[in-house]
């Protein structure tokens, strides 16, 4: 085993500066909908889907910068007063502190409230001294607000703060004191708190901020019930009892806060609360669930991809940005690439087409759908020779291989050395890079969690089975005409380890749970799954939706079923239940 096998990872928006975040940001419909909405939104998105970018761009500082170049952002800020506070629930102590659960709830609550209020104060200060709201005396307003907030949030303060900066310093000190008070792993008593100078107290999550906002709104001449946006990022880091606590609070907080929350699939259900079962049954009806996943064949994603490459190749004229990808990578179909690889393919394909129409009585439309299959089979066969393969190349294929994930697209462009003044890139180099990346994504699966090998084996097993069918050498094999690239699986009956492999794969964009009946939820039970298109070069598959197989028995792979084995049919692979639209690519 080569332990230095690959470079992991996707580019991340986490550590981008404000300036770079705004520069790289491409607004989408979802962004505007969330920004202008007063409702609560819970967004599920895989690694690299743009969750952090989306939320950071709703924070006041980012929106303010963005509003200088974007009229809609200007409207959101100046007319609609969309004021956002960004809070990342990363690996900070109040999230990671893990001991007695009851006690942990206290430190989690206090920690989040302290951190949120400190971030809120920073935002409030920026708002007051910006031109977004008009105030006759900004200093006086600041003093008035500080007085109210200090009185409300602290039991006592030795020296009364006169400015937001001074109040923020008190919050920072409290953040230092709190973990010290917990040094024995148990909650401090009031005497300890007093000795240490800790006087903040909160009863529930977000309550200190929520309860004071009507007064702040009034002082800032906003509507009494004006809603402030709280952007909570990285909920995936929360432990289960923290998620339950958060869900409980979110369901009961209805005041002046609009929550915009992002998390990875399968990390925060939002449904489990501390309320009674009857109350929980309504399950977060006040939330809009959204899924941050683009369809790679959809126009909106193509537009996003064009905008992303335009940002990388700044030398290209803005008016022609939609042509950059095509100019650099070309834009051929699998059929064209097969013909370019060997001119004899033209003759072969005409012969196969004629046979399909005359002998098998297929109509033109069916034949059109089969052409990419014949082409990829030919391209794979040819790759065995000395020819440099070009099967996976061209802008449309690159977009498709990024599978609707902006970070995967950026990683592909980075590995293809796309820079400011890059010219046309050789298709064989494109193929080489895309194939190497596909191998890296597969290797990446090993390092994602403790049982990474389960996920690796799962993906590799599926990929090889699909590959064997699509590239079967038997002329009689019906799989030649039955491209299967998706499978139906019921997670609820799988062994927990296998189930975990599916979920981790989904979080990291290695496995895609296709939405059935336009659900935005990732399936907990029966669902239709496929490999990420980013992996298709590894297995010589087509990056498109093929037929669906019942795949349960093949997926067991030694782990065994957990329970209810009779639910899944034991139909052999290849018995498709549904014929999906097969697009020519």
């Amino acid at each position: 085993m080569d332990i230095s096998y690959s470079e992991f990872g996707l580019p991340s928006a986490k550590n981008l500066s404000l300036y770079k975040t705004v520069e790289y940001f491409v607004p989408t419909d979802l962004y505007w909908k969330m920004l202008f909405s007063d409702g609560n939104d819970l967004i599920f998105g895989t690694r690299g889907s743009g969750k952090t970018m989306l939320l950071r761009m709703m924070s006041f500082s980012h929106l303010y910068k963005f509003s200088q170049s974007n009229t809609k952002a200007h409207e959101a800020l100046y007319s609609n007063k969309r004021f956002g506070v960004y809070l990342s629930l990363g690996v900070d102590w109040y999230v990671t502190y893990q001991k007695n659960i009851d006690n942990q709830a206290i430190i989690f609550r206090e920690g989040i409230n302290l951190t949120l209020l400190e971030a809120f104060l920073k935002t409030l200060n920026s708002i007051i001294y910006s031109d977004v709201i008009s105030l006759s005396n900004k200093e006086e307003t600041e003093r008035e607000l500080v007085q109210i907030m200090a009185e409300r949030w602290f039991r006592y303060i030795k020296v009364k703060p006169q400015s937001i900066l001074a109040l923020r310093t008190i919050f920072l000190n409290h953040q230092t004191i709190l973990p010290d008070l917990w040094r024995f792993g148990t909650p401090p008593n009031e005497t300890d708190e007093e000795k240490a100078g800790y006087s903040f107290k909160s009863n529930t999550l977000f309550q200190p901020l929520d309860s004071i906002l009507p007064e702040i709104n009034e002082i800032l001449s906003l509507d009494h019930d004006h809603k402030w946006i709280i952007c909570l990022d990285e909920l995936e880091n929360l432990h289960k009892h923290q998620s339950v606590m958060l869900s409980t609070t979110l369901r009961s907080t209805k005041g002046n806060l609009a929550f915009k929350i992002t998390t990875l699939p399968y990390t925060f259900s939002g449904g489990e609360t501390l309320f009674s079962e009857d109350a929980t049954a309504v399950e977060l009806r006040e939330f809009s669930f959204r899924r941050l996943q683009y369809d790679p064949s959809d126009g909106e994603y193509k537009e996003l991809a064009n905008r992303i490459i335009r940002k990388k190749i700044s030398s290209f004229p803005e008016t022609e940005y939609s042509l950059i990808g095509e100019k650099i990578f070309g834009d051929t179909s699998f059929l064209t690439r097969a013909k370019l690889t060997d001119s004899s393919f033209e003759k072969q394909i005409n012969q196969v087409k004629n046979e399909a129409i005359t002998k098998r009585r297929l109509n033109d439309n069916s034949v059109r759908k089969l052409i990419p299959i014949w082409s990829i089979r030919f391209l794979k066969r040819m790759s065995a020779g000395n020819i440099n393969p070009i099967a996976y190349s061209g802008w449309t294929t690159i977009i498709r291989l990024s599978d609707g994930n902006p970070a995967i697209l950026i990683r592909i462009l980075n590995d293809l050395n796309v820079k400011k003044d890059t010219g046309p890139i050789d298709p064989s180099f494109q193929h080489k890079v895309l194939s190497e990346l596909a191998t890296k994504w597969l290797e990446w699966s090993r390092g994602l969690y403790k049982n990474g090998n389960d996920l690796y084996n799962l993906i590799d097993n599926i990929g090889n089975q699909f590959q064997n069918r699509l590239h079967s050498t038997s002329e009689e094999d019906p799989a030649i005409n039955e491209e299967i690239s998706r499978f139906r699986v019921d997670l609820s009956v799988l062994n927990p380890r296998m189930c975990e492999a599916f979920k981790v794969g989904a979080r990291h964009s290695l496995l895609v749970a296709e939405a059935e009946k336009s659900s935005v939820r990732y399936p907990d039970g029966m669902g239709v799954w496929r490999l990420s298109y980013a992996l298709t070069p590894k297995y010589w598959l087509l990056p498109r939706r093929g037929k669906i197989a019942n795949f349960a028995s093949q997926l067991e792979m030694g782990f065994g079923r957990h329970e209810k084995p009779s639910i899944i049919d034991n139909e052999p692979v290849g018995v498709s239940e549904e014929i999906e639209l097969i697009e020519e690519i």
Partner: protein
Amino acid sequence: MSNDSRSILSINCLQFSEININDVDYIISACGYESRCIFVSKNLLNNYGDKEKLSKKSIVFRFTTVLDSPGRKLADAYYDELNPYLSIPINTDDWEIVFTTINNLLLELGKINPVILIDYSSMSRVQYLCLLRFVEMGCKLIFTYSIGLYDSIGIEFPISTVGTIGVVPGFEGIPFQGFPKQYVFGLGYDGVGALALADRLEVQEPVCFWTDPGAEKNTGEIIQRANKSIISKSIIQFSRDLRDVVGTYIYLNRICLDSKTTEKVIFVPIGPKPQILACGLASWRYTHSTVLAPHLEGGGITSDYPNIKPNGEIIVTQVNAA
């Protein structure tokens, strides 16, 4: 930002022979599967010869896992024979038990400037770094580390993946929402684990350092080979002598100082424990720094727990309030 409620530390490297057992009030050690975990205690016994005195001062925390390995059997036999003053079972990440036990012992002792020897050769970072708080109570802490001999490093080292990521108690730092994060990776032999961790934390341009010279002559070379990928992404790279904890502390302290108004510094020490200790010492007085306690777990390849034997050298670091 400085945490002014915490003392400025005085840190010195000592020779093992400079330790005067008569000055030491308690000797804290851990009993685990690495046979080096008894090396310091054995040497103290050899140097001073008074088993009864050593026994009365010894507090041994015994890990409740991996009980059947050859190294563990040796260690158990040694400590059973020594008959320490306290022998306390602990799990890998129990730090409250360690902290509370020592706190109670110090209260009982009632001495103004007690001296505690902490043999951290086989302790987990949350257990020995949390003891740094006792410096604030006037304690002098003597950290001892027995350098290990590793078998088959780089060949059979298990592929690691990231488990739970925690923060070392006492080194939490303030979250500083909105501050960019500067990750500082202390690299070791586990290059895959480091890369998996960097991926999980979504690290872009880390600072990387490693030990050279380290436990072996070619340690630096092995570490650089195993961590080639993450080193290539780093903005600053440097190596430090494993034995020079003070020198490493000074380097890391400069990073904290340089970034105190611009970034949050997150130490991610993966490599040998003296490197972890140096991260803790550098982070001690800064609220904008955090020391992580990530769990790297066996991933693709399962491997037996390596029996890390002592190579005969002991690194001694003395810490007290300046």
